[in-house]
């Protein structure tokens, strides 16, 4: 399910005190793809994504979610279906837990969106398995869990709604490396299941590895919409101007390019980078320290 944002503007407050946050945003979140939203802090990323499931209503323009149009005049009652189709995972989602057992908490969303108890339970169990919560925890109080487990339960709470699209606002913040990896795997699973995924992230390595499309925000406007392979071809200055990092492998490749190396395509990972460097190195002229080569390369 695609989401279209057309001429969206948004401001907090009204009248003289109005504070313009988003200005004339036009973009399409493609169905079944991973769209990453990046930009410096305060550029309006969170504000933008909260329009995707109508938590905020546009001040001007419209958001088209599937076949539903959301404008400034849309009534609260009409928003339910939009929210059922677009799940939202906030930063630190664990503070949304409230029920007396893990299972009940995960069932909350599906039940709100019209599933009966049995359907909701089935969906909840499926979601809990998907995030790797073992059955022994299902009847525990969510407040007895560790932080990482709470985060999984919260995530399951949104997955269980089985939305067509899911939005993640900096989901990896505060997770350990393993947790981050699992999360990225989950995003890819969602994509494989034809879900539309939107991801706000400050980690460009993730963006490069995962995204099909990158939206760069600056001061409440869209500065660029491009595939990551295109985007990261831009010169360093552009990234400085937009307060963005480069992915590690790309930054390294750009350094090497300054020294006469050439890369056929943007290195997507460290392995990719290493591969491309390997074919360009004139091994006869390289003297490696023995400790590094282990003596193997002494040809």
């Amino acid at each position, binding site marked *: 399910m695609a989401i279209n944002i057309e001429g969206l503007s948004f401001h*907090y*407050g009204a009248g*003289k005190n109005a504070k313009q946050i988003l200005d004339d945003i036009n973009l399409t979140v493609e169905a079944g793809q991973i769209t990453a939203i990046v930009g410096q802090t305060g550029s309006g990323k969170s504000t933008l994504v*909260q329009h995707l*499931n109508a*938590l905020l209503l546009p001040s001007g323009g419209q958001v088209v979610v599937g076949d539903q149009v959301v404008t400034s005049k849309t009534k*609260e*009652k009409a928003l*339910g279906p939009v*929210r*059922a189709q677009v*799940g*939202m995972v*906030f930063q630190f*989602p664990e*503070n*949304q*837990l*409230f*029920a007396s057992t893990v299972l009940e908490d995960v069932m*909350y*969303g599906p*039940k*709100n*969106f019209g599933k009966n108890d049995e359907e909701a339970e089935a969906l909840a169990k499926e979601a809990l398995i998907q995030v790797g919560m073992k059955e022994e925890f299902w009847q525990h109080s969510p*407040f007895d869990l560790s932080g990482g487990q709470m985060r999984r339960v919260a995530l399951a*709470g*949104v997955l269980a*709604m089985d939305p067509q699209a899911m939005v993640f606002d900096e989901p990896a913040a505060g997770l350990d490396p393993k947790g981050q990896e699992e999360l990225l795997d989950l995003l890819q699973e969602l994509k494989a299941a034809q879900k539309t995924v939107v991801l706000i992230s400050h980690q460009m390595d993730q963006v490069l590895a995962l995204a099909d499309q990158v939206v760069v925000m600056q001061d409440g406007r869209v500065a660029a919409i491009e595939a990551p392979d295109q985007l990261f071809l831009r010169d360093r200055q552009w990234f400085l101007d937009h307060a963005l990092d480069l992915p590690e492998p790309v930054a390294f490749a750009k350094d090497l390019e300054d020294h006469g190396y050439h890369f056929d395509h943007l290195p997507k990972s460290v392995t990719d980078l290493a591969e491309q460097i390997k074919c360009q190195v004139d091994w006869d002229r390289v003297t490696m320290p023995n400790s590094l080569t282990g003596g193997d390369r002494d040809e």
Partner: protein
Amino acid sequence: MNNLVIGQFIPGKAWLYRVDPRTKILVTVVYVFLLIFANTWPAYALATLFLALTLVLTGQSLELYWRGIKPVMWLIIFTVCLQLFFTGGTPVLFHWQFLKITLPGLINALYVVLRFVLIVLMSTALTLTTPPTAIASAIESLLKPLKAIKVPVAELALMLSIALRFVPLLMLETDKVMKAQKSRGMSLSTGSLIKRSKAVLPLLIPLFIGALQRALDLANAMEVRGFESADNRTRYRVLSFSKQDLVAALGTGLFVLLFIGLLWIN
């Protein structure tokens, strides 16, 4: 959410900002107390004049105060209706089925509205020009005499200032949890009353848990930094009376005398 003017502090440099918070609190208390006895138009006129002067001295725009009054408008209208329809007496001005409006009722209603608006605006002027922490330490200072009868004034004041500190945090938190639960289909604006009040639980429980967690964290943080007793602590900002306070006291004294005089004549 951040549109609430009542209780909010807005930094500024006008005259009232330089008055000691203790003076401001005392003046507000005296003002509110006197208003209870106001029962004639001249008394209300005088009180309104005093308020107008205060508002001018805050240096803020009148529009701001209008925004402050707006949220409590419904409360005002409600009390007006009560007064209008449920005060007996003669002459009757309007009669329709069981509803009737009498002249004393009408006058009473107007008095109530005026009193309400005056009190709200006066307290708004206080909180608008005084940071919450200053209010807390002023209250502590004013209540000091109660220490003689073993009231833990310092602890109470500390609790107050911590509570004040937590208000904006809680508001932010409410907004966050509300959005998270709305995303999971929470709806507070549809369904029967019972259903709606039940729907608040997923909002309240995370808020309580978050607040408790915060409180525990704060308690630990204070303890590891050697906090023992709220008594006899030195302060970063020391309160002191100055020329402005004398002026404020004289002005208020004059107002009180005139006001009592007006009540007397009546």
